[in-house]
C-alpha cells in the first residue's frame, strides 16, 4: 500500500471497473442491493475481484457502495458485518497484488435545503461505514458517485474524524459538465483540495470523451493527483447492461484524459475486466503527462465558484451593527428578511456575501447555524463567515456548503492558534487582519510584517497562500489623518511583495465625516489601483458597483466588456418613469399593487398620523378590499400577492417609526410538517398574514412535531398554522396537532394544503381548515379578537 501511494501522481495506476454491472450480467435484478451478496454469495464477489486483479487492477473497491444504515435497513444484514466481510473478500482476492479501498457511495437521500437529511446526520451515517471499514483493514477510502458537494463534504468529514486512511474523492458529472445539483468542477476541485483529500477524481454518468472538459477544469484547479473512472459510454436502450463503447474504444477515449494529466484510470458502469485490460495495455510504460495547474484563489458554494482573479465585491449588509431591522430579524428568525437582504446585494453587484451576526443577546453559533442554510437556500453566491468566536466559527464552517472565506484571523498568537486550525480542517480561505498584541500598527511596514507572520503561520499549518487574503485595516481619516495613506501603502506592499489577495472594509474610511458616500467611492478607487481585490462594501450605494465594473474594464480584467455593457448599455438604462406629480394614497397604491407609491404615501401619512393608525385605517382596509375581490373571483392570487408586496413596502416605512414591541395583530407560528418539503402555499399564507400585521414565526419545512411543540411553548403561541401537500405527510400533521393539544389545549391550530378537506381537517383535530390565504386571515383575526 505504502509503495503504491508513493507512486501516486508519479506513475500510472490502474483502478478497477464496475461491480454492479458484472453482478447484473450474472442475474442480479435491477433495484436490488449487491452489498448483501457479500454475505449470501461471497464467492461471486470474490470472483469479480479476482478477474480485475488478473486484468491489472492495482486498487480494488470493496462491495460496499450502498452499504449504509439507510439503504441496508430493509435487508436485515448488519452494516459492520457487510463491510467487514466485503473488505476480507477483497483482501483474499487481491492476494497482495492490489490495495483494498473501502468503497463509499451516496446515502440515497438529499441533504437540506433540497431534501430533509441534515448535515450532521449525514456525517453520522458515513461514520459507521468508515469505522467498520478501517477496523476491517481497508488500505484507503474511496468515496464515489457523489453529485452533491455538501454530501461529499459530509463523507470526507466523517473520514477525517474517524480514520487516518488516505481518501480518494470522486464526483459524478452529467453531460453538461456539472453535477445534477449544479456543482461545477472548479468548485469540487477547490473544496476537495482544501479539505486535504489524497486524490480527486470523476466517475460514472458519462464516457471518457464527454468528461474531457470536466477533467480539464479539475486538473487545472488542483495540485492533487487526479483519477478517472468513466462509464463505458452511454447505455444502449435495447439492453441496460450494454454500453456503446467496446473495451478498445474505451481505452482509446481514455487517451484524452491521459493527455490532461490524469494519473489513475479505471471504469464504472458498463465496464468489465476486459476494459481494464485494454486500458492497461494502452498505458503501461507511459510517463504521466504534464499538467497546466493554475495558481488561483477560489471560493465556492455547492454550485458556484468565484475565482478571485479580479476585483470582486463582498456585500457587507448582513451585519447587525447599526441596523435595527436586521437585529430584529436575527432575534425573530425572520428568514424572509435575511434572504431579501442577501438577494438585494447580489442583484446590486456583490459576488460574495459577508455574514456577521455578532450582537448582544443572541447565541452566535446557533444563529449562524440557521442563517447560513437560509441564505444558501436562495443563492449560490459564496459566503464570508465573519466571526471571531471559535465555537461559532467551527459550527458555521461545518455546516457551510462549499468553501467559504473566514473573516478573520489576526497576528495575535491566540488568534493564530485557535482560528487557523479550524480554517484548515474545513478547507476554507481566511482573511488576515494586520493587527497583533500591540494593536493596529501605525506604519505600513509594521502592518506588512504582521501580514508576513500570518502568511507564514498559515503555510506552516498547511493552508495554501492562495487561500490567505490580507486586510490592511481601514481607519477613519477623521481620527487618523494618515489613515488612508498608511492603508494604501501597506496594501501595495502586500500585493507586490507577498503576491496575496487583499481585503478592505472600505466604508470605515469616512466614519464621522460628511459626504461619506463620495469619500468612500474615492477611497475604493484608490485602493483598487493600489491592489485591493476584495472590497467589503454596500453594493446598493450609488456608484459602488459602477466603480468596480468600470475599474475592471479599464484594467482589462473584463476583456470582452460584457459586464460593463450589461450594466451601462442602452437597454439597462431605460427606466420606467412615473409621473412624479401623480400621487396616490396608500389604499389606492396597495389596491393597484404599486410598492413605490405605497411607500411614498405611507411616508406622507406619517406626518399627520401615527403608524398604527396608518395600518388600521389605510393598509388593512386596502388589503380587505383586495381580499374581497379575490373571494369574488375579480382578482387572482398573483394580483393579491402583488398587493401584499405593495403593503409590505408601506409597512417597511412604518416599521422604522414603530417600537419593536408595539402593535402587532398577534403572533402566529407556521410550518410545513415533518417529511414534506413543499412550502410555496405556506409562504404565500405567511406573506398575506404578515401584511395584516401578524407577527409570523416561520419554522420552514420538514419540521418535527417535537420542534413545533417546543417552539409553541417557548414563544407562548396561541395560533399555529400547519401545511402539508402529500397524503403521506398527513399523519405527521395529525401527530403534530395531537402533540400541540396535549401540551396546550388553548392553542388553536389551522391547517391547509392541496390534499386537505374540511372534513379531514376536523377528523385530525384541527380547529380550522383554511382553504386559501384569505380565509386564513379571517380566522386569525377571529382568534385574536376572541382572546
Amino acid at each position, binding site marked *: 500500500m505504502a509503495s503504491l501511494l508513493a507512486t501516486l501522481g508519479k506513475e500510472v495506476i490502474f483502478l478497477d471497473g464496475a461491480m454492479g454491472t458484472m453482478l447484473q450480467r450474472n442475474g442480479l*435484478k*435491477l*433495484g*436490488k442491493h449487491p452489498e448483501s451478496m457479500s454475505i449470501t454469495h461471497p464467492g461471486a464477489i470474490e470472483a469479480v475481484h479476482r478477474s480485475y486483479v488478473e486484468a491489472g487492477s492495482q486498487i480494488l473497491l470493496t462491495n460496499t457502495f450502498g452499504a449504509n444504515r439507510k439503504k441496508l435497513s430493509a435487508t436485515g444484514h448488519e452494516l459492520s458485518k457487510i463491510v467487514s466481510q466485503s473488505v476480507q473478500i477483497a483482501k483474499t482476492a487481491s492476494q497482495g497484488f492490489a490495495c483494498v479501498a473501502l468503497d463509499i457511495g*451516496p446515502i*440515497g*437521500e*438529499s441533504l437540506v*435545503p*433540497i*431534501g*430533509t437529511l441534515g448535515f450532521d446526520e449525514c456525517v453520522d451515517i458515513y461514520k459507521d461505514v468508515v469505522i467498520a471499514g478501517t477496523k476491517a483493514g481497508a488500505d484507503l477510502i474511496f468515496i464515489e*458517485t457523489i*453529485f452533491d458537494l455538501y454530501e461529499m463534504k459530509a463523507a470526507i468529514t466523517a473520514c477525517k474524524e474517524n480514520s487516518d486512511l488516505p481518501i480518494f474523492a470522486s464526483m*459524478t458529472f*452529467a453531460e453538461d459538465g456539472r*453535477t*445534477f*445539483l*449544479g456543482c461545477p468542477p472548479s468548485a469540487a476541485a477547490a473544496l476537495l483540495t482544501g479539505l486535504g483529500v489524497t486524490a480527486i477524481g470523476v466517475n*460514472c*454518468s458519462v464516457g471518457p470523451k464527454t468528461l474531457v472538459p470536466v477533467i480539464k477544469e479539475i486538473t487545472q484547479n488542483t495540485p492533487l493527483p487526479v483519477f478517472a473512472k468513466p462509464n463505458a459510454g452511454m447505455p444502449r*436502450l435495447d439492453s*441496460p447492461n450494454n454500453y456503446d463503447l467496446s473495451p478498445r474504444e474505451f481505452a482509446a477515449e481514455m487517451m484524452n484524459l491521459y493527455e490532461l494529466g490524469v494519473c489513475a484510470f479505471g471504469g464504472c458502469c458498463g465496464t468489465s475486466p476486459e476494459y481494464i485490460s485494454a486500458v492497461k495495455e494502452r498505458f503501461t510504460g507511459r510517463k504521466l503527462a504534464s499538467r497546466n495547474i493554475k495558481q488561483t484563489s477560489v471560493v465556492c458554494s455547492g*454550485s458556484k465558484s468565484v475565482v478571485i482573479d479580479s476585483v470582486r465585491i463582498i456585500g457587507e449588509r448582513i451585519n447587525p451593527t447599526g441596523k435595527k431591522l436586521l437585529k430584529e430579524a436575527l432575534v425573530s428568525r425572520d428568514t*424572509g428578511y435575511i*434572504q*431579501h437582504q*442577501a*438577494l*438585494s446585494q447580489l*442583484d446590486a453587484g456583490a459576488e460574495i456575501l459577508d455574514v456577521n451576526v455578532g450582537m448582544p443577546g443572541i447565541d452566535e453559533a446557533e444563529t449562524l447555524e440557521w442563517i447560513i442554510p437560509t441564505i444558501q*437556500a*436562495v*443563492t*449560490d453566491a459564496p459566503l464570508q463567515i465573519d466571526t471571531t468566536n471559535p465555537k461559532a466559527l467551527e459550527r458555521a464552517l461545518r455546516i457551510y456548503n462549499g468553501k467559504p472565506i473566514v473573516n478573520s484571523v489576526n497576528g495575535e498568537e491566540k488568534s493564530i492558534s485557535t482560528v487557523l486550525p479550524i480554517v484548515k480542517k474545513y478547507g476554507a480561505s481566511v482573511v488576515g487582519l494586520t493587527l497583533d498584541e500591540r494593536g493596529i500598527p501605525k506604519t505600513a511596514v509594521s502592518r506588512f510584517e504582521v501580514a508576513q507572520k500570518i502568511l507564514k503561520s498559515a503555510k506552516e499549518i498547511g493552508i495554501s497562500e492562495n487561500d490567505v487574503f490580507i486586510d490592511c485595516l481601514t481607519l477613519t481619516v477623521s481620527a487618523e489623518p494618515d489613515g488612508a495613506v498608511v492603508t494604501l501603502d501597506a496594501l501595495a506592499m502586500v500585493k507586490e511583495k507577498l503576491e496575496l489577495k487583499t481585503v478592505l472594509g472600505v466604508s470605515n474610511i469616512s466614519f464621522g465625516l460628511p459626504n461619506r458616500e463620495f469619500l468612500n467611492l474615492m477611497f475604493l478607487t484608490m485602493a483598487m489601483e493600489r491592489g485591493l481585490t476584495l472590497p467589503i462594501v454596500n453594493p446598493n450605494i450609488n456608484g459602488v458597483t459602477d466603480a468596480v465594473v468600470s475599474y475592471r474594464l479599464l484594467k482589462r480584467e473584463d476583456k470582452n466588456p460584457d459586464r460593463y455593457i450589461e450594466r451601462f448599455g442602452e437597454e439597462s438604462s431605460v427606466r420606467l418613469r412615473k409621473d412624479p406629480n401623480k400621487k396616490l394614497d396608500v389604499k389606492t397604491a396597495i389596491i393597484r399593487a404599486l410598492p413605490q407609491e405605497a411607500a411614498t404615501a405611507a411616508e406622507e401619512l406619517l406626518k399627520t398620523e401615527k403608524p398604527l393608525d396608518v395600518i388600521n385605517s389605510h393598509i388593512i382596509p386596502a388589503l380587505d378590499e383586495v381580499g374581497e375581490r379575490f373571494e369574488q373571483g375579480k382578482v387572482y*392570487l*398573483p*394580483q393579491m*400577492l*402583488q398587493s*401584499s*408586496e405593495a403593503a409590505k413596502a408601506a409597512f417597511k416605512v412604518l416599521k422604522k417609526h414603530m417600537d419593536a414591541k408595539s402593535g402587532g395583530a398577534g403572533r402566529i407560528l407556521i410550518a410545513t410538517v415533518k*417529511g*414534506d*418539503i*413543499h412550502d*410555496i402555499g405556506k*409562504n*404565500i399564507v405567511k*406573506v398575506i398574514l404578515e401584511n395584516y400585521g401578524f407577527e409570523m414565526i416561520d419554522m420552514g419545512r420538514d419540521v418535527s412535531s417535537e420542534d413545533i411543540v417546543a417552539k409553541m411553548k417557548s414563544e407562548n403561541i396561541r395560533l399555529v398554522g400547519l401545511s402539508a401537500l*402529500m*397524503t*403521506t*405527510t398527513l399523519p*405527521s400533521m395529525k401527530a403534530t396537532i395531537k402533540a400541540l393539544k396535549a401540551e396546550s389545549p388553548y392553542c388553536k391550530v389551522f391547517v391547509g394544503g392541496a390534499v386537505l378537506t374540511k372534513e379531514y381537517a376536523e377528523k385530525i383535530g384541527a380547529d380550522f381548515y383554511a382553504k386559501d390565504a384569505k380565509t386564513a386571515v379571517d380566522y386569525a383575526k377571529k382568534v385574536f379578537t376572541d382572546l
Partner: protein
Amino acid sequence: MKFIHYFELDHKEDGTGIAGTDTVLPYIKPLQACLRCAVFAATLGHGADTEIRSAFARSPSSGLALDTAANRNLFELHRKIEEEVLAASGAYIMSVISPGSCYLDISYQKDIVSILNTIHTTGIFVNDYCVLTPSKTITGIIGISETPVVKENQCDTCTHKCEYGRSTKNGITVSNSW
C-alpha cells in the same frame, strides 16, 4: 432531464411483474392488454427549485409566477415523454400511470426510483414519505400494447369524485365543472 427504460411485463393472478425486477404492480385493468411498458422519471432539476425559492424571496408574486411556469414545463415534459415512448414503441400506448394516481399507491415511487436508479441517472431522490426531490419531478409507467388501445377515462373508475373530474359520454371526455 429524463430517463426512460423499457421492460417486459409478466401478468399474474396477484398483479403484474416488471421483468428483471422484484416490483409487482397491483391489478391495473388497462395494463392487462400490454406486454411491455416504459418506466420513466423526469425532472426540471434542482436548479428550478433554487430559482423558485430565490424568486419567492425577492417577490412572492414572482415566485408564484415562476412556480406556475415550472409546473407548465413539467406538463410539457410529460407530453414529450409520451410522444417519445409512442415513437420508440412502434405500437400503441396507454395513458401514464403514476404513483399516487387512482391506480397505483404512492409507495411505488420508491420502486421506480430504485429500478431506474434515478439518483445516478437524473439526480432524483425519494424520501421515507415518498416525496420526490427535486420537487418538479414526475415518474410513471406507460403500458405498450400491440393492439389498438381505448384510453380509459380514469375518472370513470376513480373512487374520489372530486370537482375536477371528467366524464366520458359518446366517446367525448369533458370536465364535470364545465
